[in-house]
């Protein structure tokens, strides 16, 4: 038996590996977008794909996001599985008409005759010192669009496993990649990549009894850190990583909240009209009589994403999470 080399990989590398393996397994998988070919993408996620599979399978497109998504729709209509890269969150907006009016509706429009197995990769979120338009958290738009799956990994292993699942899905998947976790590392065995994860299952990242932090993507590490810090205050926090915003895993989330009786939703996206409202509302609908306090939200402010020099004030951090936990009406318990 040979010993396997377990070495650290970044999330960006894991995503690249997922693309590579999907392309190797299935000749209908095509990667396309701005700078994805020769350059390997501005985050280098697609590095090496054009070389390995040729420019017809990993294509530098003209610079036009509606055109990228629109032609990908046509390619999927013909039976290909396009994986589209949007260069940054805010640069996906020009493609929203194609997304809302076609990508999300084609299967339904044709009663299932014309599914669109399309993956749209969107680097999202802040914390990387990016200037305007490079740090948006746009998940609320995707969540409000029926017909899309919305998936976001928070770990290196999930980056691989969920992206493979997204590409294999017969439905369109918006795959949100937390930019500031691109360089996060985890060790894995490159000869045996992590398992393909089913889309739609949340996972408890940390068990606890006092309250549940419900989170995803870039906020997971922050929540885990907050949970550690909370111990000093006597709170034993459970942390749920949603991984998939659509479909939403009510079962896992509700089970946790019923168990703890308190919950805080944590995300970078703005609060008003953001994912937290939906999550808080559905948790409350399902767990009302278990709740000791209203489900609270710790989110970005309801403002355009701030300039780099102010972003630390905007992003949900450990203190803000602990403040929210403190407001969970603990006195009511005694």
């Amino acid at each position: 038996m040979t010993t396997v080399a377990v070495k650290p990989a970044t999330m960006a590398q894991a995503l690249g590996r997922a693309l590579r393996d999907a392309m190797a397994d299935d000749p209908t998988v095509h990667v396309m977008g701005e700078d994805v070919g020769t350059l390997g993408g501005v985050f280098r996620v697609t590095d090496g794909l054009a070389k390995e599979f040729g420019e017809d399978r990993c294509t530098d497109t003209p610079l036009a996001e509606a055109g990228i998504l629109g032609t990908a729709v046509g390619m999927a209509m013909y039976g290909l599985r396009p994986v589209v890269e949007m260069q940054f969150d805010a640069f996906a907006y020009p493609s929203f008409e194609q997304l809302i009016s076609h990508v999300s509706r084609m299967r339904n429009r044709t009663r299932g005759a014309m599914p669109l197995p399309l993956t749209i990769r969107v680097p999202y979120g802040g914390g990387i010192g990016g200037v305007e338009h490079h740090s948006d958290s746009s998940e609320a738009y995707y969540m409000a669009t029926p017909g899309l799956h919305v998936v976001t990994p928070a770990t290196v292993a999930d980056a691989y496993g969920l992206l493979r699942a997204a590409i294999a899905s017969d439905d369109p998947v918006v795959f949100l990649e937390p930019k500031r976790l691109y360089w996060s590392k985890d060790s894995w065995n490159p000869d045996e990549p992590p398992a393909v994860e089913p889309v739609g299952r949340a996972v408890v990242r940390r068990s606890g009894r006092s309250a549940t932090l419900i989170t995803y993507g870039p906020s997971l590490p922050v929540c885990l850190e907050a949970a550690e810090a909370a111990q000093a205050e006597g709170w034993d926090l459970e942390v749920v990583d949603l991984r998939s915003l659509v479909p939403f895993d009510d079962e896992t989330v509700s089970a946790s909240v019923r168990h703890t009786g308190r919950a805080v939703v944590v995300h970078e996206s703005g609060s008003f009209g953001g994912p937290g409202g939906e999550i808080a509302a559905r948790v409350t609908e399902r767990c009302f009589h278990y709740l000791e306090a209203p489900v609270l939200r710790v989110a970005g402010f309801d403002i355009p994403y701030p300039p780099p020099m102010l972003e630390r004030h905007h992003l949900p951090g450990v203190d803000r999470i602990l403040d929210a936990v403190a407001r969970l009406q603990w006195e009511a318990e005694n």
Partner: protein
Amino acid sequence: MTVMEQRGAYKPTPPPAWQPRTDPAPLLPDALPYRVLGTDAAAEADPGLLRRLYGELVRGRRYNAQATALTKQGRLAVYPSSTGQEACQVAAALVLEERDWLFPSYRDTLAAVARGLDPVQALTLLRGDWHTGYDPREHRIAPLCTPLATQLPHAVGLAHAAHLQGDDVVALALVGDGGTSEGDFHEALNFAAVWQAPVVFLVQNNGFAISVPLAKQTAAPSLAHKAVGYGMPGRLVDGNDAAAVHEVLSEAVAHARAGGGPTLVEAVTYRIDAHTNADDDKRYRGDSEVEAWRAHDPIGLLEHELTERGLLDEDGMRAAREKAEEMAADLRERMNRDPELDPMDLFAHVYARPTTQLLEQEAQLRAELDAEERHHESEGAAR
């Protein structure tokens, strides 16, 4: 590098060789729309083709009339008629091989019907029934597209995919004059030219986007002139001359099939009816303009040519009309039957497998419908 470091070594040279990426001259459309009927070119047209076109035009006109009548009877939610544009609709359908794809807009049900689609299936959307009445893959007709110009990138992507797969398939996409102003038109044509995708764009310039005349839509010499900006040929054709449209589109399709890349064709035509049955065209145009175009009617033009040349007589005309009436009668009859829709279909195709959220909503609706039914039954029983 600052200018200081730069100096000394510097010898001015002409700019690195610049040359046009394409020769613009052959891309530019002719000065006038190409015509066949009533010109010398008509002599070379295939009589069989002309007769076939004639039959389809007559049937198409009857189809438009019948569909419009169905709106008055409440059997169609809305109908955007292509009366006056039948030459474009029919030619677009006839130039394609079975393996090719057609990308229609909401106005182009006739093109789909001329391609062989059952008119009832073509009208499913406009009837208020399910969004698409046919399997696009079976017929190689994309769903009727309502958001303007958004079907164009689909056509490009599909043609490109077919080409990559080594399939000998051409896509033909229809769009209106108004639709050319949308960003998607631009992006689609650019992708098509860069990829040299086997796709043909047919702009039916019918003079209006609802109420907005072409002069408020563009200042370009012609819509066909836009082609040069993408590096593809632009062709201008009389859109009421079925023989001319057929010829120009056939050439473009052959060019695409041979690997020559995309073509933009502008067919100059006119929308004789209002935008839809819900529109009031008296608000934005006068009768005289409509009358001038009636005198250049696609059917009249072709009929004149055929009768002049002895290719069509009263019997032939009657036969064409009778076939058209048959189609109309059948359509009328079948459209008068209420379609049966299953409310549960609302949830069936949102995803490959419904989410738990949708299953909950489905159960809710089913319970409501069951309750309704029980209510009706008990009411029935009580009487």
